[in-house]
């Protein structure tokens, strides 16, 4: 085993540009995904907690189905499979999304040539898959958080004359949010890590760039190490933030 490490070549020149591009794409996909996942997750959770039985069944089925199927299958489904259930014209429009933002554009101070990858149909289906998948987990986290508030809190606040919405707004949610935020942030973290699966359908995010460096220079070891370190840096920064948050706020929740 005589392997010459070449760290410089894996982060400079062409690979360096790819890495930056991949980093930006990963962050963009993740943040858009997190936004939609939160919106969907809150909707599903609210539906789950209503008294109207069909809503409860639908949202329960949604959560169970998307939690118990692999993300990769979902990505492939949205990318290859979902096309046939859409109308022809909508389908064509989605496939042409790639050409919507042509030409060079700058982002974060660096110039990108070609199209805005984000709006390709690939990244659209990845964003759909990521946000649907994560929203199922988020709905469960929020529900668990709200249920962890003792039931007599609701009863007591109802008894003091608040109506149902007011009780939630002023008594239950302020407490629940504190409990829910740390697991929510770790779901965001999972989403960022899961966005690496986007490479399976050819979105040029970080993991894809690692394979590109591998095939360009043959620097498999270096490329994957660098990309792993970038992911690690992202998640360590975020989990550090969670720990700080816990230190500041968690102690105040007492019953």
């Amino acid at each position, binding site marked *: *085993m005589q*392997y010459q490490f070449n760290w410089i070549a894996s982060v400079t020149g062409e690979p360096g540009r790819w890495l930056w591009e991949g980093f930006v794409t990963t962050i963009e996909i993740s943040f858009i995904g997190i936004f939609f996942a939160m919106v969907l997750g809150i909707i599903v959770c609210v539906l789950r907690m209503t008294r109207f039985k069909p809503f409860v069944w639908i949202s329960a089925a949604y959560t*169970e*189905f998307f*939690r*118990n*199927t*692999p*993300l*990769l*299958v*979902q990505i*492939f*489904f949205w990318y*290859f*499979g*979902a*096309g*046939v*259930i859409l109308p022809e014209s909508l389908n064509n429009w989605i496939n042409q999304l790639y050409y919507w933002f042509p030409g060079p554009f700058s982002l974060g101070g660096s110039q990108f040539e070609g199209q805005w990858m984000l709006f390709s149909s690939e990244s659209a289906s990845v964003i759909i898959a990521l946000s649907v998948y994560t929203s199922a987990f988020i709905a469960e986290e929020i529900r668990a958080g709200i249920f962890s508030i003792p039931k007599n809190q609701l009863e007591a606040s109802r008894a003091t004359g608040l109506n149902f919405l007011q009780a939630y707004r002023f008594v239950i949610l302020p407490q629940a949010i504190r409990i829910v935020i740390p697991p929510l942030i770790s779901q965001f973290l999972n989403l960022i*890590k*899961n966005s*690496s*699966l986007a*490479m*399976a359908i050819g979105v040029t995010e970080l*993991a894809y760039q*690692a*394979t590109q460096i*591998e095939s360009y220079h043959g620097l*498999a*070891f270096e490329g*994957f190490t660098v*990309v*792993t370190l970038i*992911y*690690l840096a*992202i*998640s*360590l920064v975020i*989990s550090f933030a969670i720990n700080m948050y816990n230190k500041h706020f968690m102690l105040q929740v007492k019953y």
Partner: protein
Amino acid sequence: MIWDNLDYFLWGAAKLTNTFPYVKNIGGLAASIVLAVIGIFGAFWLGLLAGLMRISRNKISKYSAMVYIEVVRGTPLLMLIFWFFFLAPILLGRTLPSFESSLIAFIVFTSAYIAEIVRAGVNALPSGQMEAARGSGLSHVQAMRFVILPQALRNMIPSFVNQFVSLTKDTSLAYIIGVNELMRTAVQVDNRETRISFEIYITIAILYFVVCYILTSYSRSLEKKISRYQARDR
């Protein structure tokens, strides 16, 4: 069309009439489950080790376990799979079959999560248990072995089942380095037959769902059953 390929989805190209000699050809859902079962078994022991190191008083083992757990948990599974796939030629001088290298990645990845479960499970036991065990004359290791771990592990069984569920889902990532598991059989069939992608991906999603949902509901019922026998403070 799906019906014709269903046996391929379920066990790949293996001849089930004579399973054992052909076990190398096993594919589809069967291969996913084999990966998940061996993976969870390996990850249990590695995770138990890492978890116990994480809660030990020895600074070196504590911090090395902490670094291990944080690094693995902060890395996407896909990167780990690539790592072991591309690292093997450098370390061993020969390529490792993709089945084995993805298995190593699964074990390493899941063990970090199991280590955290072990840590939480041991910490959840009332400290009186340890004190009582030490007081009755057992050494620290003996107390761990005969008093703490049997209780802690029993409480952790639902979490292990959940981890098994997520590992079963994660085995689909082995598709990317070419293991012939359920995801890959789906893509193969998708490439062979045109225009039925929708049905194919729905089918394998349902296959994964059935396996995972059974396990999830099982873990939920276990959780209810176990919570009655837990040792608690007060």
